[in-house]
């Protein structure tokens, strides 16, 4: 292999695939980046067997070939090279990558590319296109609600449901649930639903940062992999095996109180309450006092036995019965953070039923939080 490319491009490409490099693995080759020539481009690949990323950068290919080199080492080295042309040559006999840039030269010992797991391009089964901004927003709204605890693998994933209604993403960790739906320009040929690891979607969100063209999503026929095609970047994710809980059944259908409040005000009040709630299992009490247009009130309070308490009052439009309900402040903050509309609507039934949060006029997005038990 003999190629030349610009340090800038190489560094950017490495930064993109670097996040898929395995940190804990029994296979040493997974902590490496695969460099291979692909026609007149250089292809960088990394995988941790859960997520795989391929990234193509422009290069001048003099001789084709492939090798793998340690990711950390390569990243550190390339980032400290001057911004000029980098020449790379593989010495096949020793699997050493010789790297030259200006007056700098380095030799990196690699592992044979044959040992690198294949990042397969799935056979086409279902293909949809989605606007990158919409996709990013959906991921922001949903992925954070997935469980971080790996003991129930299904909940660490996000359900992606493709149907005639569009694409629905849903994630839950047992205490909260996020569901977001968007219409698709073309309906998928057949309804499909798969569970994609939340980590993969978060990576996708990160690497699609500069993307302007629609993102192409493919689900492979064996339903083994989800495949996202971006400009010059591919992300392949293994799917989580299992059945996602029937979340539609737990979504409340009736409510006794509906509160509409300014998102920013509520977020500020909850943040303040969280200062005290930290010591008291994150419990924040929310009281809704009915009243018409801005004559209703919402009282947010938190009490810490050791450090004191705090109460904030904000204006709100409250319809229905008065109610006092407690939530985990962490979950409230997470949810309000992704409500990108000026106002948020909160529907509640009683102190022991989940609360439903929706952005007012912000698309088809529902976030449900289980209440906490208030000790009397």
């Amino acid at each position, binding site marked *: 292999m003999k190629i030349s490319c610009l340090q800038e491009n190489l560094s950017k490409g490495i930064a993109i695939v670097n996040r898929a490099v395995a940190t804990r693995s*029994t296979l040493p080759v997974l902590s490496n980046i695969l460099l291979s020539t692909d026609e007149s481009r250089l292809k960088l690949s990394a995988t941790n*067997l859960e997520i795989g990323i391929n990234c193509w950068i422009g290069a001048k290919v003099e001789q084709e070939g492939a090798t793998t080199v340690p990711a950390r080492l390569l990243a550190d080295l390339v980032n400290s090279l001057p911004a000029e042309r980098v020449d790379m040559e593989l010495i096949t006999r020793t699997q050493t990558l010789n790297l030259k840039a200006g007056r700098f030269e380095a030799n990196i010992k690699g592992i044979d590319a044959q040992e690198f*797991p294949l990042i397969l391009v799935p056979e086409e089964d279902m293909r949809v296109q989605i606007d990158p901004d919409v996709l990013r927003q959906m991921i922001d709204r949903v992925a954070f609600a997935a469980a971080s605890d*790996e*003991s129930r*693998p299904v909940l660490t994933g996000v359900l992606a449901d493709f149907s005639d209604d569009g694409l629905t993403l849903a994630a839950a960790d047992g205490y909260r649930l996020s569901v977001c739906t968007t219409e698709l320009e073309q309906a998928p040929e057949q309804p499909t639903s798969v569970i994609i690891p939340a980590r993969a979607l978060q990576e996708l969100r990160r690497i699609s940062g500069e993307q302007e063209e629609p993102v192409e999503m493919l689900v492979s026929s064996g339903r083994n992999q989800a495949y996202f095609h971006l400009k010059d970047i591919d992300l392949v994710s293994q*799917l*989580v*095996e*299992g059945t996602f809980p029937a979340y539609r059944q737990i979504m409340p259908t009736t409510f006794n109180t509906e509160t509409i409040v300014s998102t920013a005000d509520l977020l500020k009040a909850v943040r303040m309450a969280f200062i005290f709630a930290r010591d008291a299992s994150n419990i924040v009490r929310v009281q809704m006092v009915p009243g018409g247009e801005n004559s209703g009130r919402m009282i947010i309070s938190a009490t810490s036995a050791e450090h004191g308490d705090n109460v904030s009052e904000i204006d709100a439009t409250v319809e229905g019965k008065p109610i006092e309900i407690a939530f985990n402040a962490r979950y409230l903050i997470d949810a309000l953070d992704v409500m990108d509309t000026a106002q948020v609507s909160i529907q509640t039934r009683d102190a022991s039923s989940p609360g439903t949060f929706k952005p007012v006029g912000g698309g088809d997005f529902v976030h449900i939080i289980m209440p906490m038990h208030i000790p009397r």
Partner: protein
Amino acid sequence: MWQVIGHTWAVDLLQRSLASQRLAHAYLITGPDHIGKTHLALEFAAALNCNGEEVPCHHCTPCRKTVQGTHPDVQVIEPEGARLKIDQIRRLQYDLALSPHEGRRRVCVISQFERATTEAANALLKTLEEPPRHVVLILTASDASLLLPTIVSRCQILPLRSVPTPIIEAALRERIAEEARVQLIAALAGGRVGWALQAIQEPALLEQRQDNARQMLQVLCHGRARRIQQAEMLATHEDVQGMLQTWQLCWRDVILLQHHCEELLANTDLYEELAQIATSSSPEQASTAWQSTRTMLDQLEKNVNARLALEVMFLSWPRVEVGVTDSV
């Protein structure tokens, strides 16, 4: 072609279940150490993902990767330190939930499962009962009775037995030419294929054994005072257990010689010395010595003071004049 030495019935069984696509979701392979449990498990793993015609073909990429231990869908889990811990099982459960990366099935070999903590074993129960579709779990253990009954009842058990010496001999002949060494190693292996193959590659293993045997002969020449001295010295030996195992085998041979069963001898290279011991001690003495060696091996696992136990054992051994040069 399955590259397994011995265990033909187990290979047949697995092959049939592969051919008829009637796989169990979990297997438990039991048998003594070094008998080829993990090897059989890996061969099966290769067969499950093989692309060749006659599985496992050992030529296709998945087969090669499995054998090299670089197949992304084949995982081997071993105890971390002394025990297999619950964290290892939890991590595994997450990995298993993902669909296979490039093969048809995810295969996980969990070796020495008898060393799993109770918590780890219990954590695995749910997965073992109902693993994801693509998963085949293979546990190995020295004996099914050491595992929780709930684990055993969820697996198809393949109890491997010692491999007959002629089969080991045949396998060794393909690898080394010297007939004397073939016979010695096969006899010493006592059915443990893994040990025999290791002995070929690491001559140190055999040398160590000879050293151990020489130590025993020396002890036998000495009186009580010297024996106690030697116990003190040997107590700090790096592999007391290995030493005791050699001694136990030597005493076994002495008893066999006393009963004129030369053909069953394991330490064929020490024939003369052992014969000397056999003629100058009574069968009762030899049997007491074997028994005390065996007892000490058991006690060693229960954290007995090695020096004291060695003293007790040495004193129960008979005094025999063996023609060995004293080089202490």
